């Protein structure tokens, strides 16, 4: 075991680690904070929260985002909610239970210490957000409302209709803007980080490109925080925003930061299916819909065929001819099994020939039963109607459904042209989140001193599968409540470091590297667009490193990606010039990095001879088709070091001292 | 008092002035209409002329009327200033702009409608106010039988002090009023069809101006409540957009056909 992978988890009892750490971590006094500069890359939940909180503490912060405003970071698109162990519903929730659910949900591939800390600070996040004016859903009594999400048996998810991510991000954004207004944060919108500058082995700044003028800029920082999100767009089609990319994290990786568990990808079960080759991205339908939607396919193959041809409507299929396969396979959790389980089950049914749309890649998410029997009947009772008609039940129930999910239903209709109040939704899994990311220790520091990774950009809390409503929790936990403490541990030793001039040779050399690469991209002057290569990469990744992987597929994928890389650098056409607003050039740089990442993901997936969470190796499954973990040989974090001629694997052993490691069952 | 100028320089302060003066002018319209409706009485203009004298001699009314002129001018020129300012906020215009898709025609043309009304006011003041004040307006003697209420009138060629003299002749039982006859100026003026047409067009402009302006002023004042929005909207359209402009427009038409 290489000792560079020291996770620095504090000693002591699990539930005292963080408290003790906070009381003993090095502090930086207020006067010194004023002369310490911190660079934050990314302005999503983690980035905005970190930039705002650190600025409030007195640090000088520079924040960068490639979007035209920090408010547009992709955290904004999260729909369903945010978990917190408040136990407001009196249903037995606790910090331990949230911790336990997260570890189990992550298929026992996350660090106990980090996850417990996450569960501990979860409550404070809700308090902080409410204080900022985040309009969470409330009950008539004025108290906060909760709903349940996959992988849990309590109601601990706080939400703001189907726009929770938006409201949380706008809260963090407002805190960030407040600091910008006060001059504590200098904001660089429409700037993309293109490299990390290291001096004497420590991260000391970044090279960023002003996306409007094309000018390269050098920025110094005593520490650099990467809050740049996940890399789901390596699959081309995903629920990520078009701009979401791995470039910041990948450049850090190239400068010495290890990439951990890159093959752990979350395929979200409830997305709107693909409609054709022109598709540029996939749209998620919130997991919260599984609270009231029942997932099914026809029990008879001939019905499925008729549905695919369009000669049969789903509403014509009788109750006994429907296969509610999640309820059948997992009676305890039913439609609320974790995402990886639900996704694989959908794939299994579709592969077996029961898919319901023209591509054969869709299952139904049906609200009819809950709309009429659950909500319709309750509403009828409230109105004092004893024997409501079917039409009345539907009318009353639709009202309740509209209240809960109105915007999602509208969005579905907008995209597909089908009214989900009348017909069940069609859904299919799509790439949604990447649990893997830069390896970080308990302080959220990567293997490069002074370089941190927060939120989806790091690997730390979700193991091999993330539970619903936990990404928002982790992003904000990292930004608001973890980094403000842990960064002191490093910066306390940096108070004597004066700001380094950006004329330093390391800045010049790194800038030269960036410039050379830009010129190289522009000078290929090939025949195919950047998107052409991106789509091809996506197809390889989806087919061979998607919901199910196997040894042959992964090997061929690695060979294909290597070939694709050669083709890219000899045949890509990047139009325009370096010194102007050039979206093709931006894309080209990102896709070049995705290609390299794709190879590493396949390498990681090939190396991990087990099935866990989002990583399902076909060779390793039970007779019933469930994932088969190998805790003897694979209870470790794979951390990949970038070398000139490939990658070197380092292993961080995972110790489970407070939780009994067991087969994950939702039956 | 720095805060007042700061407040009035703000975009919201500026439009508050438009809203408040606009609403004031709306109330003026009601007063003006009530007075002018005297024109439709069959008394040869006695009531109207008496009203005209009252309006131009009562010190309080005179004082208010100067305020009114000031407010009309302010509302007009402040509005034009705001239009100019608002145009500056979009230095490059759209090649395609589909305003009708998202807003009512009247709301987008307030500046133009207001300018038509301003031009009309100049004409209107020239037609009647200037004539009354500076022109040669004949005097008429009205004789009202106190017992029957019957009124007869004839031109008066002598001289009186001021604009009106009024006394009762006990012998004949007549109330005699000698008064500067604005009524005849009005009646003569509206013999011209083109002028009547201009008046009708102007009242149409006024109608559209108020259909938007009345309710808009409430929105500017911060009054937007689901309970009352319909009421405000209905008064804006019904009273200020339809009833008032039509009643105003009836007068020139009445004289056109009366003659």
């Amino acid at each position: 075991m290489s000792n560079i992978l020291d996770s620095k988890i504090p000693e002591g009892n699990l539930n005292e680690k963080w408290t003790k750490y906070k009381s003993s971590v090095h502090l930086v006094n207020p006067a010194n904070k004023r002369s310490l500069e911190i660079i934050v890359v990314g302005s999503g939940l983690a980035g905005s929260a970190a930039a705002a909180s650190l600025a409030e503490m007195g640090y000088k912060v520079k924040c960068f985002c490639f979007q035209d405003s920090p408010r547009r970071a992709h955290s904004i698109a999260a729909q369903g909610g945010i978990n917190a162990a408040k136990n407001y519903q009196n249903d037995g929730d606790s910090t331990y239970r949230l911790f336990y659910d997260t570890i189990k949900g992550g298929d026992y591939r996350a660090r106990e210490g980090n996850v417990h800390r996450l569960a501990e600070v979860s409550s404070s996040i809700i308090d902080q957000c409410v204080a900022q004016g985040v309009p969470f859903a409330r009950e008539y009594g004025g108290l906060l409302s909760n709903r349940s999400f996959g992988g849990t048996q309590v109601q601990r998810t706080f939400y703001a209709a189907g726009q929770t991510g938006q409201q949380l991000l706008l809260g963090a954004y407002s805190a960030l803007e407040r600091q910008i207004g006060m001059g504590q944060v200098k904001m660089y919108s429409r700037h993309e980080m293109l490299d990390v500058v290291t001096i004497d082995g420590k991260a000391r700044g970044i090279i960023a490109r002003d996306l409007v003028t094309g000018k390269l800029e050098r920025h110094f920082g005593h520490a650099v925080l990467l809050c740049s999100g996940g890399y789901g767009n390596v699959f081309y089609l995903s629920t990520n925003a078009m701009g979401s990319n791995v470039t910041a994290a990948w450049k850090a990786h190239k400068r010495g930061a290890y990439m951990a568990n890159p093959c752990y990808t979350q395929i979200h079960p409830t997305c709107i299916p693909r409609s054709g080759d022109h598709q540029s991205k996939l749209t998620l339908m919130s997991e919260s819909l599984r609270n009231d939607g029942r997932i099914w396919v026809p029990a008879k193959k001939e019905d499925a065929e008729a549905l695919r041809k369009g000669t049969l409507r789903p509403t014509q299929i009788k109750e006994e001819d429907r296969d509610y396969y999640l309820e059948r396979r997992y009676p305890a959790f039913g439609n609320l099994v974790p995402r990886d389980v639900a996704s694989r089950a959908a794939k299994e049914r579709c592969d077996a020939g029961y898919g319901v749309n023209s591509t054969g890649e869709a299952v139904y998410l049906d609200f009819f039963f809950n709309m009429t029997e659950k909500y319709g009947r309750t509403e009828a009772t409230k109105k004092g109607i004893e024997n409501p008609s079917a039409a009345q039940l539907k009318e009353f129930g639709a009202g309740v459904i509209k209240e809960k999910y109105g915007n999602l239903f509208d969005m579905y209709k907008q995209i597909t042209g089908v009214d989900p109040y009348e017909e069940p939704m069609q859904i299919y899994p799509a790439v949604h989140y990447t649990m893997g990311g830069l390896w970080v220790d308990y302080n959220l520091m990567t293997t490069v001193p002074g370089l941190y990774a927060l939120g989806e950009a790091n690997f730390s809390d979700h193991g091999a599968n993330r539970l619903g409503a936990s990404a928002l929790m982790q992003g904000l936990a990292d930004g608001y409540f973890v980094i403000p403490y842990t960064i002191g541990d490093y910066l306390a030793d940096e108070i004597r470091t004066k700001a380094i001039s950006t004329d330093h040779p390391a800045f010049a050399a790194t800038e030269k590297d960036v410039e050379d690469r830009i010129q190289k991209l522009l000078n290929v002057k090939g025949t195919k667009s950047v998107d052409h290569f991106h789509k091809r990469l996506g197809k390889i990744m989806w087919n061979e490193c998607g919901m199910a992987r196997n040894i042959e597929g992964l090997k061929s994928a690695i060979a294909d990606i290597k070939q694709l890389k050669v083709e890219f650098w000899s045949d890509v056409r990047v139009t325009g010039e370096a010194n102007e607003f050039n979206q093709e050039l931006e894309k080209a740089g990102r896709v070049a990095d995705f290609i390299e990442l794709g190879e590493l993901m396949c390498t990681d997936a090939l190396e991990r001879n087990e099935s866990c969470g989002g990583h399902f190796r076909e060779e390793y499954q039970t007779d019933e088709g469930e994932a088969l973990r190998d805790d003897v040989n694979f209870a470790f974090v794979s951390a990949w070091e970038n070398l000139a001629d490939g990658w070197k694997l380092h292993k961080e052993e995972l110790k489970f001292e407070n939780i009994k490691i067991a087969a994950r069952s939702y039956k | 008092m720095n805060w007042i100028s700061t407040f009035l320089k703000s975009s919201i302060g500026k439009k508050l002035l438009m809203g408040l003066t606009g609403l004031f002018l709306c109330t003026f319209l009601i007063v003006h209409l009530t007075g002018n409706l005297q024109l439709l009485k069959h008394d040869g203009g006695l009531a109207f002329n008496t009203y005209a004298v009252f309006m131009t001699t009562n010190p309080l009314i005179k004082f208010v009327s100067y305020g009114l002129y000031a407010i009309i001018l302010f509302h007009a020129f402040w509005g034009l200033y705001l239009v100019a300012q608002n145009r500056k906020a979009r230095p490059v215009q759209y090649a395609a702009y589909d305003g009708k898709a998202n807003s009512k025609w009247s709301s987008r043309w307030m500046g133009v409608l207001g300018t038509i009304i301003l031009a009309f006011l100049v004409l209107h003041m020239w037609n009647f106010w200037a004539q009354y004040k500076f022109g040669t307006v004949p005097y008429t003697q009205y004789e009202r039988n106190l017992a029957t209420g019957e009124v007869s009138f004839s031109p008066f060629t002598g001289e009186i002090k001021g604009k009106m003299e009024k006394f009762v002749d006990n012998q004949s039982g007549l109330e005699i009023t000698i008064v500067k006859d604005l009524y005849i100026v009005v009646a003569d003026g509206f013999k011209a069809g083109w002028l009547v047409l201009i008046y009708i067009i102007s009242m149409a402009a006024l109608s559209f101006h108020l259909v938007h302006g009345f309710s808009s002023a409430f929105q500017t004042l911060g009054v937007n409540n689901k309970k009352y929005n319909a009421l405000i909207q209905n008064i804006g359209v019904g009273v200020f957009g339809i009833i008032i402009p039509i009643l105003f427009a009836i007068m020139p038409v009445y004289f056109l056909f009366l003659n």
Partner: protein
Amino acid sequence: MKINLKVWRQKNNKAKGELKDYKVDHVSPDMSFLEMFDVLNEDLITKGDDPITFDHDCREGICGSCSMHINGRPHGPLAGVTTCQLHMRSFSDGDTIVVEPWRAGAFPVNKDLSVDRSAFDRIIASGGFISVNTGNAQDANNLPIGKEQADEAFMSAACIGCGACVAACKNASAMLFVSAKVSQLALLPQGQPEAKMRVMAMVNQMDAEGFGSCTNTGACSAECPKGIDLSNIARMNREFFSANLLGK
């Protein structure tokens, strides 16, 4: 479907722009408007031409990046959607579509259809927040807020900051955007301590950015993809009056 386009092309902020004609064949009715632009750009790249620059990111109607003025209307002919949610089934074969950037002095053009909306950020920075440092908060349920009030605040908070309100307004006024934030925070008890300062600062910044003033045409709300209501503007006016006239 075949679509004819007239698209605003402008090299950079300083350059003069013009509408240029393009033809896109093989348009599927299931494509989003932006996917149709992807097809066009792919075509332009193959021909060696400069593809059209336009802002877009999430493509699911929430990030507020996309900003096309389509046939005279921000985000095109449908109500309640952003450009990325507009699908080609809303157009007919052979249609000619005029596409321009948002037009406002406060939103200078960066390139082609991309404009600089940082004025919105500066308005938020001037006061669109509640001053609460991380870690200062009390327990969330210590502050009950009635459901109706919370829902109303949420409706105001739904603004995505896309700028369609400014683009639609004949005066390029930003009142709907500013009032949505003022309203959200004015409706919540947490927002009260700074309410007066907030509205004064935000209106002041809005004016300084060069947006026009509101003449209550209602175009902003009609075109808002999130249906932000005009009552927000009335509320902001009230807040502004009370801050100026009744404050200290």
